[in-house]
């Protein structure tokens, strides 16, 4: 039949048009599927109320020198220690090449007498001891993790044990003389 012959002649063109249509359909299907799936995936991300709790304000009045408190921030403990001058000096005196995770003390604090860190051992996540006056503070005067024996110094830097990095310093800022906002 006549139609068959002409379609043979235009074979290449027909193929191209069909390929184009396949491509466009496939692309639309892909975009459509992504548009359908993205809201479902994103709904599992933290919701607005969880994000709202992402900041915690802490009043530092009442924490005397040498004392430490623990607050909750984003579901995790945060250690706030009011360091004594001796503790600050000891922290600043440590040579950086002795540190597994080299960080000068000045990089870990805003005001040297206030040390704010996430109280979660960077090894496998236990909460280190050292906040309470009777707690073991490890060999470097800071904190000691009883789970696998990591020792942290007065700047919260890891000195011995399996922990790979220093105790994390969260993003925080002073919103007043004795007021900080974490996160």
């Amino acid at each position, binding site marked *: 039949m006549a139609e068959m012959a002409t379609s043979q002649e235009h074979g290449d063109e027909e193929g191209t048009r069909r390929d184009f249509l396949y491509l466009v359909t496939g692309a639309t299907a892909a975009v459509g599927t992504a548009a359908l799936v993205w809201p479902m995936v994103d*709904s599992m991300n933290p919701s607005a109320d969880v994000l709202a709790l992402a900041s915690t304000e802490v009043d530092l009045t009442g924490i005397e020198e040498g004392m430490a408190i623990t607050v909750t921030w984003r579901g995790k403990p945060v250690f706030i220690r009011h360091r004594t001058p001796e503790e600050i000096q000891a922290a600043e005196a440590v040579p950086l090449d002795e540190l597994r995770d080299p960080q000068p003390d000045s990089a870990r604090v805003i005001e040297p007498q206030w040390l704010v860190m996430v109280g979660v051992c960077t090894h496998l996540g236990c909460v280190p001891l050292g906040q309470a006056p009777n707690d073991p503070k490890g060999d470097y005067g800071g904190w000691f993790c009883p789970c696998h024996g990591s020792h942290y110094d007065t700047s919260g830097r890891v000195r011995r044990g399996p922990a790979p990095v220093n105790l994390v310093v969260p993003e925080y800022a002073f919103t007043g003389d004795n007021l900080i906002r974490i996160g």
Partner: protein
Amino acid sequence: MSASPSGRPEYSNAVVRWIEYRLPVFSAANEFMGTDYPAPRNLNYWWNFGSLAGVALVLQILTGIVLAMHYTPHVDYAFQSVEHIMRNVNFGWLLRYAHANGASLFFIVVYIHLFRGLYYGSYKAPRELLWMLGVVILLLMMATAFMGYVLPWGQMSFWAATVITNLFSAIPLVGEGIVTWLWGGFSVDNPTLVRFYALHYLLPFVIVGVVVLHLLALHQHGSNNPLGIDKKSPKDSLPFHPYYTVKDLFGLGVFMIVLALFVFYAPNLLGHPDNYIPANPLQTPPHIVPEWYFLPYYAILRAITFDVLFIPAKLLGVILMFGSIIVLFFLPWLDTSPVRSSRFRPVYKWFFWVLVLDCLLLGYLGAHPPEGTYVTLAQIGTAYYFFHFLILLPLLGKLERPRPLPRSISEPVLEPAPSATPAE
């Protein structure tokens, strides 16, 4: 892919061949809805609604599972957890509205799919089991939707649950015991809510199982078609892919547009504003109405205001309400006509449309308080419904003179063979 001398498909891709040899998913898929599955060439758009129902089921399951991650099934927290989803969860408003309106669309699609079956005789031999499985799916959908509506714990949620669970008290002797068992207490309360949540999560997967059986039954003899006559030769059919895959994709696009219109422009149109009021067991709303897809059954339930012999009105209403669906199970045997499609049944065709109007009327009446003319009309509507299935269909098959059927599906379309005599 090409056919080998043995007839089994050979695939050019080595990975595909490796998998196919161990688990023949590719040939199975092709035989299920690919180029190897023949479908009648004359299917019209009324045949799109089965695939749309499948899509609606998947959509409900996906949105439902994601919503379940944020919902709290406790009477003190349920309502506020739904508001938390609407206000706090990323895209929570979209997922909630998609799930609520998706349920409505699921029922619209399934009702059209059902009426297609009624019009074209798709329930007749050899598709009786296919039809009955469909009725089972409908029943499961209704149970799922009912329980799902209770979960937001609004006024309508609570009182619909109270009314519908109370229905079972109509059963003589064991009725009250059954109701207490359903409630898990002495009224609709926390135990009821939590078990409805568990069952609402479960039943959709039971529906999936029955849908699998439904599709297996369908593929045994293939789809019916608008002419209602069987395939006689390969000329009568087309490969499902690409003809009906593309047509189904188009239908899906229209479905998605309609869903989007509801979700983005009228998300609460099909709902009841009273369900934005937290449930109050001490205060009944002035008019308790179920969601629109239950209105016809609600009308039938409330139409029976009189006792019949020893059966009290309340029990009779319950019997007829459930009976309106149970009667569908017997349809293949109630309809005695040897002709499938209404295209060739001039008398039945009219009564089909009367039935459609009757169901729409019952739906309308279900939304109104059961007073005065509304009750009388509901009684007439209920009477016609059962008359249609129990009396009309058996008689019509015997009395009606059907129009002559075409010789084959392709005959009305393709030119008759040269040997056939032209005019007679």
